[in-house]
Protein backbone atom coordinates (compact mmCIF):
# COMPACT_ATOMS: atom_id res chain seq x y z
CA UNK A 1 0.00 0.00 0.00
CA UNK A 2 1.22 3.52 -0.77
CA UNK A 3 1.52 5.55 2.47
CA UNK A 4 2.55 8.83 0.88
CA UNK A 5 1.63 11.62 1.49
CA UNK A 6 -0.32 10.43 4.57
CA UNK A 7 2.76 9.59 6.64
CA UNK A 8 4.04 13.12 6.03
CA UNK A 9 0.69 14.64 7.01
CA UNK A 10 0.75 12.75 10.31
CA UNK A 11 3.87 14.64 11.44
CA UNK A 12 3.41 17.95 9.70
CA UNK A 13 3.51 21.22 11.65
CA UNK A 14 1.26 22.97 9.16
CA UNK A 15 -2.51 22.62 9.47
CA UNK A 16 -4.09 20.39 6.81
CA UNK A 17 -6.76 21.59 4.41
CA UNK A 18 -10.25 20.10 4.65
CA UNK A 19 -9.58 17.87 1.61
CA UNK A 20 -6.27 16.65 3.04
CA UNK A 21 -7.90 15.90 6.42
CA UNK A 22 -10.65 13.97 4.66
CA UNK A 23 -8.14 12.00 2.60
CA UNK A 24 -6.03 11.22 5.68
CA UNK A 25 -9.12 10.08 7.58
CA UNK A 26 -10.08 7.78 4.70
CA UNK A 27 -6.59 6.31 4.52
CA UNK A 28 -6.41 5.73 8.28
CA UNK A 29 -9.63 3.73 8.15
CA UNK A 30 -8.07 1.22 5.78
CA UNK A 31 -4.35 1.26 6.72
CA UNK A 32 -3.36 -0.57 9.91
CA UNK A 33 0.27 0.64 9.82
CA UNK A 34 -0.72 4.31 9.59
CA UNK A 35 -3.30 3.84 12.35
CA UNK A 36 -0.57 2.41 14.53
CA UNK A 37 1.78 5.23 13.63
CA UNK A 38 -0.83 7.84 14.44
CA UNK A 39 -1.52 6.23 17.82
CA UNK A 40 2.22 6.12 18.60
CA UNK A 41 2.72 9.75 17.71
CA UNK A 42 -0.39 10.87 19.61
CA UNK A 43 0.92 9.13 22.75
CA UNK A 44 4.37 10.68 22.40
CA UNK A 45 2.99 14.15 21.72
CA UNK A 46 0.59 13.91 24.67
CA UNK A 47 3.56 13.09 26.87
CA UNK A 48 5.44 16.14 25.59
CA UNK A 49 2.44 18.42 26.02
CA UNK A 50 1.63 17.17 29.52
CA UNK A 51 5.17 17.01 30.88
CA UNK A 52 5.37 19.47 33.76
CA UNK A 53 7.99 22.19 33.35
CA UNK A 54 11.13 21.96 35.47
CA UNK A 55 11.86 24.74 37.96
CA UNK A 56 15.14 25.74 39.56
CA UNK A 57 15.61 25.24 43.29
CA UNK A 58 14.65 28.28 45.44
CA UNK A 59 17.18 31.10 45.73
CA UNK A 60 18.12 31.16 42.04
CA UNK A 61 18.28 34.97 41.85
CA UNK A 62 20.40 35.22 45.02
CA UNK A 63 22.81 32.66 43.59
CA UNK A 64 22.93 34.64 40.36
CA UNK A 65 23.79 37.85 42.23
CA UNK A 66 26.65 36.03 44.00
CA UNK A 67 27.86 34.70 40.66
CA UNK A 68 27.70 38.18 39.14
CA UNK A 69 29.79 39.61 42.00
CA UNK A 70 32.31 36.79 41.62
CA UNK A 71 32.51 37.31 37.82
CA UNK A 72 33.06 41.05 38.36
CA UNK A 73 35.87 40.36 40.79
CA UNK A 74 37.50 37.98 38.28
CA UNK A 75 37.11 40.59 35.53
CA UNK A 76 38.69 43.21 37.81
CA UNK A 77 41.63 40.92 38.50
CA UNK A 78 42.05 40.27 34.78
CA UNK A 79 41.97 44.01 34.12
CA UNK A 80 44.63 44.62 36.77
CA UNK A 81 46.77 41.84 35.33
CA UNK A 82 46.40 43.36 31.85
CA UNK A 83 47.34 46.78 33.19
CA UNK A 84 50.39 45.31 34.95
CA UNK A 85 51.47 43.67 31.72
CA UNK A 86 51.03 46.91 29.80
CA UNK A 87 53.07 48.76 32.41
CA UNK A 88 55.75 46.07 32.30
CA UNK A 89 55.83 46.19 28.49
CA UNK A 90 56.10 50.00 28.57
CA UNK A 91 58.90 49.85 31.15
CA UNK A 92 60.74 47.16 29.19
CA UNK A 93 60.41 49.14 25.95
CA UNK A 94 61.64 52.30 27.65
CA UNK A 95 64.60 50.43 29.13
CA UNK A 96 65.40 49.01 25.71
CA UNK A 97 65.24 52.46 24.08
CA UNK A 98 67.39 53.93 26.86
CA UNK A 99 69.89 51.13 26.44
CA UNK A 100 70.06 51.67 22.67
CA UNK A 101 70.53 55.42 23.08
CA UNK A 102 73.23 54.81 25.70
CA UNK A 103 74.94 52.40 23.36
CA UNK A 104 74.89 55.07 20.64
CA UNK A 105 76.70 57.38 23.07
CA UNK A 106 79.13 54.74 24.26
CA UNK A 107 80.09 53.32 20.86
CA UNK A 108 82.25 56.37 19.87
CA UNK A 109 84.40 55.72 22.99
CA UNK A 110 85.39 52.38 21.58
CA UNK A 111 85.99 53.83 18.12
CA UNK A 112 88.29 56.67 19.27
CA UNK A 113 88.97 56.69 23.09
CA UNK A 114 91.62 59.49 22.86
CA UNK A 115 89.14 61.97 21.33
CA UNK A 116 86.58 61.05 23.98
CA UNK A 117 89.03 61.66 26.88
CA UNK A 118 90.24 64.96 25.40
CA UNK A 119 86.61 66.06 25.05
CA UNK A 120 85.96 65.04 28.68
CA UNK A 121 88.99 66.99 29.98
CA UNK A 122 87.89 70.05 27.98
CA UNK A 123 84.35 69.81 29.44
CA UNK A 124 85.73 69.47 32.98
CA UNK A 125 88.07 72.48 32.67
CA UNK A 126 85.34 74.68 31.15
CA UNK A 127 82.95 73.71 34.00
CA UNK A 128 85.56 74.64 36.62
CA UNK A 129 86.25 78.03 35.01
CA UNK A 130 82.53 78.76 34.71
CA UNK A 131 81.99 77.93 38.41
CA UNK A 132 84.81 80.34 39.34
CA UNK A 133 83.29 83.11 37.24
CA UNK A 134 79.88 82.57 38.87
CA UNK A 135 81.43 82.63 42.34
CA UNK A 136 83.10 85.99 41.62
CA UNK A 137 79.87 87.43 40.25
CA UNK A 138 77.87 86.41 43.36
CA UNK A 139 80.57 87.83 45.68
CA UNK A 140 80.61 91.18 43.82
CA UNK A 141 76.79 91.39 43.93
CA UNK A 142 76.72 90.65 47.69
CA UNK A 143 79.31 93.35 48.38
CA UNK A 144 77.32 95.88 46.34
CA UNK A 145 74.05 95.04 48.11
CA UNK A 146 75.61 95.26 51.60
CA UNK A 147 77.09 98.65 50.79
CA UNK A 148 73.90 99.97 49.18
CA UNK A 149 71.30 98.86 51.82
CA UNK A 150 71.53 100.21 55.39
CA UNK A 151 72.13 97.56 58.12
CA UNK A 152 68.75 98.09 59.91
CA UNK A 153 66.96 97.46 56.59
CA UNK A 154 68.83 94.21 56.16
CA UNK A 155 67.95 93.17 59.73
CA UNK A 156 64.27 93.98 59.01
CA UNK A 157 64.28 92.01 55.74
CA UNK A 158 65.84 88.94 57.34
CA UNK A 159 63.40 89.11 60.29
CA UNK A 160 60.46 89.33 57.86
CA UNK A 161 61.77 86.35 55.85
CA UNK A 162 62.19 84.37 59.08
CA UNK A 163 58.62 85.17 60.17
CA UNK A 164 57.23 84.16 56.76
CA UNK A 165 59.08 80.83 57.01
CA UNK A 166 57.64 80.22 60.46
CA UNK A 167 54.12 81.03 59.26
CA UNK A 168 54.58 78.68 56.32
CA UNK A 169 55.67 75.80 58.58
CA UNK A 170 52.74 76.37 60.98
CA UNK A 171 50.19 76.50 58.18
CA UNK A 172 51.64 73.42 56.57
CA UNK A 173 51.33 71.43 59.80
CA UNK A 174 47.81 72.70 60.38
CA UNK A 175 46.63 71.76 56.89
CA UNK A 176 48.41 68.46 56.42
CA UNK A 177 47.95 66.82 59.82
CA UNK A 178 44.70 64.76 60.08
CA UNK A 179 41.98 66.41 62.08
CA UNK A 180 41.31 65.01 65.51
CA UNK A 181 37.91 63.34 65.69
CA UNK A 182 36.03 64.37 68.79
CA UNK A 183 33.81 61.73 70.29
Amino acid at each position, binding site marked *: MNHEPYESWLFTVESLTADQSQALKGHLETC*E*ACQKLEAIWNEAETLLRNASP*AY*PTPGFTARWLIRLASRRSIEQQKKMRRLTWWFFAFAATSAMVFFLLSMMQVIPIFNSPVDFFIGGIYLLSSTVSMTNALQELVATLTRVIIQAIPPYWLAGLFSMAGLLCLLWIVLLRKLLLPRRILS
Partner: protein
Amino acid sequence: MDYQDPPLEKALQGDEEAFASLVDRYQGPVYNLCYRMLGDSNEAEEAAQETFLRAYLGIKRYDRAKSFSTWLLSIAAHYCIDRLRRRKMTLVPFDTLSYEEIADPLPGPESLLNFHEQQQQVRALLDVLNPTDRAIVVMYYWQDMSNNEIAQALNLTVSAVKSRLHRARIEMARVWRKDSNPNPTQEVIRYESRTL
Protein backbone atom coordinates in the same frame (compact mmCIF):
# COMPACT_ATOMS: atom_id res chain seq x y z
CA MET B 1 8.27 43.54 22.01
CA ASP B 2 8.59 44.50 25.65
CA TYR B 3 7.93 48.23 25.52
CA GLN B 4 6.75 49.99 28.67
CA ASP B 5 8.35 47.43 30.95
CA PRO B 6 9.94 49.49 33.77
CA PRO B 7 12.33 46.77 35.07
CA LEU B 8 13.52 46.09 31.52
CA GLU B 9 13.97 49.81 30.84
CA LYS B 10 16.00 50.19 34.04
CA ALA B 11 18.00 47.03 33.30
CA LEU B 12 18.86 48.45 29.89
CA GLN B 13 20.34 51.45 31.71
CA GLY B 14 22.57 49.01 33.65
CA ASP B 15 20.49 48.81 36.85
CA GLU B 16 21.54 45.56 38.56
CA GLU B 17 18.51 45.41 40.86
CA ALA B 18 16.14 45.77 37.92
CA PHE B 19 17.94 42.99 36.08
CA ALA B 20 17.66 40.80 39.19
CA SER B 21 13.89 41.23 39.01
CA LEU B 22 14.04 40.08 35.36
CA VAL B 23 16.03 37.03 36.51
CA ASP B 24 13.25 36.36 39.01
CA ARG B 25 10.64 36.66 36.27
CA TYR B 26 12.30 34.56 33.56
CA GLN B 27 14.17 31.96 35.64
CA GLY B 28 11.42 29.35 35.07
CA PRO B 29 11.35 29.34 31.24
CA VAL B 30 15.13 29.67 30.95
CA TYR B 31 15.80 26.90 33.47
CA ASN B 32 13.18 24.63 31.87
CA LEU B 33 14.74 25.11 28.42
CA CYS B 34 18.20 24.33 29.81
CA TYR B 35 16.91 21.32 31.72
CA ARG B 36 15.09 19.87 28.72
CA MET B 37 18.12 20.47 26.53
CA LEU B 38 20.78 19.12 28.90
CA GLY B 39 18.74 16.60 30.92
CA ASP B 40 20.61 17.29 34.15
CA SER B 41 19.57 19.64 36.95
CA ASN B 42 23.10 20.73 37.90
CA GLU B 43 24.03 21.46 34.32
CA ALA B 44 20.70 23.22 33.77
CA GLU B 45 21.31 25.45 36.81
CA GLU B 46 24.80 26.27 35.54
CA ALA B 47 23.51 26.98 32.03
CA ALA B 48 20.61 29.14 33.25
CA GLN B 49 22.92 31.15 35.53
CA GLU B 50 25.39 31.63 32.68
CA THR B 51 22.54 32.67 30.35
CA PHE B 52 21.47 35.49 32.68
CA LEU B 53 25.07 36.52 33.20
CA ARG B 54 25.69 36.73 29.46
CA ALA B 55 22.44 38.62 29.00
CA TYR B 56 23.38 41.10 31.74
CA LEU B 57 26.87 41.67 30.37
CA GLY B 58 25.61 41.92 26.79
CA ILE B 59 22.41 43.89 27.47
CA LYS B 60 23.64 46.64 25.13
CA ARG B 61 23.31 44.18 22.24
CA TYR B 62 19.61 43.54 22.97
CA ASP B 63 17.44 44.65 20.04
CA ARG B 64 14.34 46.38 21.45
CA ALA B 65 12.36 45.39 18.36
CA LYS B 66 12.43 41.76 19.54
CA SER B 67 10.89 40.15 22.58
CA PHE B 68 13.17 40.06 25.62
CA SER B 69 12.14 36.50 26.50
CA THR B 70 12.95 35.32 22.96
CA TRP B 71 16.36 36.98 23.25
CA LEU B 72 17.01 35.29 26.60
CA LEU B 73 15.88 31.89 25.32
CA SER B 74 18.06 32.37 22.26
CA ILE B 75 21.12 32.88 24.49
CA ALA B 76 20.14 29.85 26.59
CA ALA B 77 19.56 27.64 23.54
CA HIS B 78 22.86 28.55 21.90
CA TYR B 79 24.72 27.99 25.15
CA CYS B 80 23.08 24.56 25.60
CA ILE B 81 23.75 23.60 21.97
CA ASP B 82 27.44 24.40 22.50
CA ARG B 83 27.48 22.40 25.73
CA LEU B 84 25.84 19.41 24.06
CA ARG B 85 28.36 19.53 21.22
CA ARG B 86 31.20 19.63 23.74
CA ARG B 87 29.60 16.82 25.71
CA LYS B 88 29.47 14.73 22.55
CA MET B 89 33.27 14.92 22.46
CA THR B 90 33.55 13.62 26.03
CA LEU B 91 30.92 10.88 25.46
CA VAL B 92 28.86 11.15 28.66
CA PRO B 93 25.95 8.67 28.45
CA PHE B 94 22.63 10.47 28.81
CA ASP B 95 21.22 7.74 31.09
CA THR B 96 23.96 8.19 33.68
CA LEU B 97 22.95 11.79 34.39
CA SER B 98 21.09 12.26 37.66
CA TYR B 99 17.79 14.07 38.02
CA GLU B 100 17.21 13.80 41.76
CA GLU B 101 17.44 17.52 42.34
CA ILE B 102 14.64 18.67 40.05
CA ALA B 103 12.25 20.92 41.93
CA ASP B 104 9.22 18.60 42.03
CA PRO B 105 5.91 20.46 41.83
CA LEU B 106 3.90 17.43 43.06
CA PRO B 107 4.23 16.16 46.64
CA GLY B 108 3.92 12.52 47.77
CA PRO B 109 5.91 9.37 46.89
CA GLU B 110 3.49 8.15 44.19
CA SER B 111 3.34 11.44 42.36
CA LEU B 112 7.11 11.75 42.73
CA LEU B 113 7.49 8.35 41.06
CA ASN B 114 5.13 9.37 38.24
CA PHE B 115 6.95 12.64 37.86
CA HIS B 116 10.33 10.94 37.57
CA GLU B 117 8.97 8.34 35.19
CA GLN B 118 7.51 11.09 33.01
CA GLN B 119 10.82 13.00 33.08
CA GLN B 120 12.68 9.86 32.04
CA GLN B 121 10.31 9.22 29.13
CA VAL B 122 10.60 12.81 27.96
CA ARG B 123 14.36 12.60 28.22
CA ALA B 124 14.41 9.39 26.19
CA LEU B 125 12.43 11.15 23.46
CA LEU B 126 14.64 14.23 23.40
CA ASP B 127 17.87 12.25 23.65
CA VAL B 128 17.65 11.02 20.03
CA LEU B 129 17.48 14.53 18.61
CA ASN B 130 20.46 16.61 17.60
CA PRO B 131 21.02 19.75 19.74
CA THR B 132 19.32 22.20 17.35
CA ASP B 133 16.28 19.96 16.80
CA ARG B 134 16.06 19.47 20.56
CA ALA B 135 16.04 23.24 21.08
CA ILE B 136 13.27 23.58 18.48
CA VAL B 137 11.13 20.88 20.14
CA VAL B 138 11.60 22.38 23.62
CA MET B 139 10.71 25.87 22.41
CA TYR B 140 7.69 24.55 20.50
CA TYR B 141 6.21 22.34 23.23
CA TRP B 142 7.22 24.06 26.50
CA GLN B 143 7.75 27.71 25.67
CA ASP B 144 4.75 27.91 23.30
CA MET B 145 6.83 29.83 20.79
CA SER B 146 5.67 30.27 17.22
CA ASN B 147 7.74 29.01 14.29
CA ASN B 148 8.70 32.63 13.61
CA GLU B 149 9.97 33.19 17.15
CA ILE B 150 11.89 29.90 17.11
CA ALA B 151 13.47 30.84 13.79
CA GLN B 152 14.43 34.24 15.20
CA ALA B 153 15.89 32.73 18.38
CA LEU B 154 17.96 30.09 16.59
CA ASN B 155 18.95 32.12 13.52
CA LEU B 156 17.13 29.76 11.17
CA THR B 157 14.55 30.27 8.44
CA VAL B 158 10.92 29.47 9.22
CA SER B 159 10.91 26.68 6.63
CA ALA B 160 14.04 25.19 8.24
CA VAL B 161 12.27 25.21 11.60
CA LYS B 162 9.25 23.48 10.11
CA SER B 163 11.26 20.80 8.36
CA ARG B 164 13.44 20.20 11.43
CA LEU B 165 10.36 19.92 13.64
CA HIS B 166 8.80 17.49 11.17
CA ARG B 167 11.96 15.37 11.20
CA ALA B 168 12.19 15.55 15.00
CA ARG B 169 8.61 14.31 15.36
CA ILE B 170 9.36 11.31 13.14
CA GLU B 171 12.46 10.54 15.21
CA MET B 172 10.54 10.80 18.47
CA ALA B 173 7.75 8.57 17.14
CA ARG B 174 10.38 5.98 16.22
CA VAL B 175 11.76 6.01 19.75
CA TRP B 176 8.30 5.90 21.30
CA ARG B 177 7.36 2.94 19.08
CA LYS B 178 10.45 1.03 20.26
CA ASP B 179 9.67 1.76 23.91
CA SER B 180 5.93 1.12 23.82
CA ASN B 181 5.75 -1.71 21.30
CA PRO B 182 8.79 -4.00 21.44
CA ASN B 183 7.05 -6.70 19.27
CA PRO B 184 5.32 -4.96 16.36
CA THR B 185 3.49 -6.89 13.63
CA GLN B 186 5.35 -7.75 10.40
CA GLU B 187 3.32 -5.19 8.45
CA VAL B 188 4.24 -2.42 10.92
CA ILE B 189 7.92 -3.44 10.87
CA ARG B 190 8.02 -3.39 7.09
CA TYR B 191 6.29 -0.04 6.96
CA GLU B 192 8.24 1.61 9.78
CA SER B 193 11.61 0.41 8.56
CA ARG B 194 10.81 2.16 5.30
CA THR B 195 9.30 5.33 6.66
CA LEU B 196 10.92 6.03 10.06
